[in-house]
């Protein structure tokens, strides 16, 4: 187990928002996440990298109780999400949001985009009337760079990048305090990737959201993260500030990951 590294450039931190301690997940006796511990602060972006099968997504889902943890604790503002009852958990859900890799698959094809974005409001702010909801949805669409007239259209009418914007709008409309991004730009083109990442960063800075940013793209993670955790076979093998991790990777697995990044400057061999 590794102690969380100190943070250099996160403004105004007191206590961590999220404290994960010795979290473990097993599937049919196979250990997918092994005693993972880390802290996440308000306004911080924590990168999580590792190869497929290393347990990144399982860890993210276990934090939100979307898969069952075998042991450990997830302290959200002091309360253990893994131990609390269903009603308490549901009350916390509005602060805990997640964005998935495949933007089209994570939207209900039979719900118009406006309905999809309004759904969290319907559930968590039932007193809000239809006009109020519509105003909030239109405002949110504008903030993610979409035309508010698009709210009547359906997901299949949008490109991958636009669908991811819709997913972000749906996740951000309640003003969550924690946003987990599970490979949010992996299925998007290079030219669209930057737009989506910048949108996430802008919304995060506005609201002071804590972000767990999962990606296998180390170059993207390097720019967005304050700190980066490296995961290998279910364990966190290294945690460091983004600068330190790229300057002086310590763990052999981290070094292997960094060495494998294809680079534009690499001189071709022939």
């Amino acid at each position, binding site marked *: 187990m590794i102690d969380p590294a100190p943070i250099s450039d996160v403004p105004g931190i007191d206590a961590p928002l999220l404290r994960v301690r010795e979290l473990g997940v097993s599937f049919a006796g196979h250990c997918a996440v092994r005693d993972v511990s880390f802290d996440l602060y308000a306004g911080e972006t924590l990168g999580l990298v590792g*190869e*497929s099968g290393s347990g990144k997504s399982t860890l993210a889902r276990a934090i939100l109780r979307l898969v069952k943890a075998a042991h450990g604790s997830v302290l959200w503002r002091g309360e253990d999400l893994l131990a609390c009852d269903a009603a308490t958990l549901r009350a916390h859900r509005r602060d805990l949001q997640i964005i998935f890799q495949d933007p089209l698959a994570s939207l209900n094809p039979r719900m118009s985009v406006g309905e999809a974005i309004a759904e969290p409001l319907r559930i968590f702010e039932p007193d809000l009337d239809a006009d109020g909801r519509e105003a909030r949805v239109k405002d949110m669409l504008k903030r993610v760079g979409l035309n508010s007239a698009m709210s009547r259209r359906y997901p299949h009418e949008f*490109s*991958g*990048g*636009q669908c991811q914007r819709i997913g972000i709008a749906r996740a951000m409309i309640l003003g969550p305090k924690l946003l987990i991004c599970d490979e949010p730009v992996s299925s998007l*083109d*290079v*030219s*669209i*990737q*930057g*737009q989506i*990442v*910048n949108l996430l*960063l802008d919304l995060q800075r506005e609201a002071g959201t804590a972000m767990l940013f999962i990606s*296998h*793209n*180390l*170059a*993207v993670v*390097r*720019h*967005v993260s304050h700190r980066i955790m490296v995961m290998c076979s279910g364990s966190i093998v290294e945690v460091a500030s*983004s*600068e330190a991790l*790229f300057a002086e990777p310590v763990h052999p697995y981290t070094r*292997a*990951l*960094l*060495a*494998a*990044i*294809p*680079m*534009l400057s*690499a*001189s*071709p*061999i*022939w």
Partner: protein
Amino acid sequence: MIPVFSIDELSVSFTQRRSTIPAVRKVSLDVKERECIGIVGESGSGKTQIFMAAMGLLDGNSAVDGRVRFQGEDILRLPPPKLNRIRGSQLTMIFQDPMTSLTPHLTIGAQLAEVLVCHEHKSWSEARIAARRMLERVRVPEPKRRLDQFPHELSGGLRQRVMIGMSLMCGPALVIADEPTTALDVTVQAQIMDLLRAMREEVGMALVLISHDLAVVAGLADRILVMYAGRIVESGAALELLQHAQHPYTAELLKCVPNVSGPRLQRLPTLPGQPPQPGDSEEGCAFAPRCPRAAARCRAERPELHEGQSRTQVACHYPISQ
């Protein structure tokens, strides 16, 4: 040198609900012996459709126009039995997803050996020996055991090695690799690129490497062709193109690749807007709406591909000059 493969004014379009959607518009390119060309472009730019059309792999709702010559023959007009003698032996293709491109109910050995049985009329026992040798060449550990395994028993990286091996069974003149590492992890991707590089040396085939990732292509290609909205917008020697992009799209695309050295950025560089959709205006340059250098002429008149600086070809009225 005579090109081993040449495409002349190839156009591909698809018919959908009575409307015609152009995917490739009058693309011409040559691949010389032993050369590796990289085709780079975003999804929907038509990079895959060129080669699907050339190999005769498109569905019935497509229309293909133009000429594709492989070793002197016009392969778009070959009768299927003749085409089948070339495909899979002299002209082969590797796809993105090695799970769906291998047959799930046949062993690795059978699938590799089949290539020689069909194309070179070898006996199954001879072909099986050759298959094992090929697994060794593409660095598959325990080749003898792998022969009797099924695709689902292999990891993604190993399956892609098997696919590469299969594409090389008959000593092809040209291998087309369509996003060969996109479905793989970064460390496995590096291994597969190393393997392709080694196979180029050992087998000496020409290679077309299709990818959305400039960095992947940069490590292997002699020449790079950049596609946008169904057309080639820039083509030139790989290093020249990467260091001195002349088309604004290439330059912007290069800027969008996040770097792994230098200072950490507060925001990632972006290319505003999105690629043209079917039904968008066809006038002028397709990139003009997103281009920082666009002028009135760009919106009115489409730039043709012409000789730019340093023997690079560029389709732009106002290319970036050094």
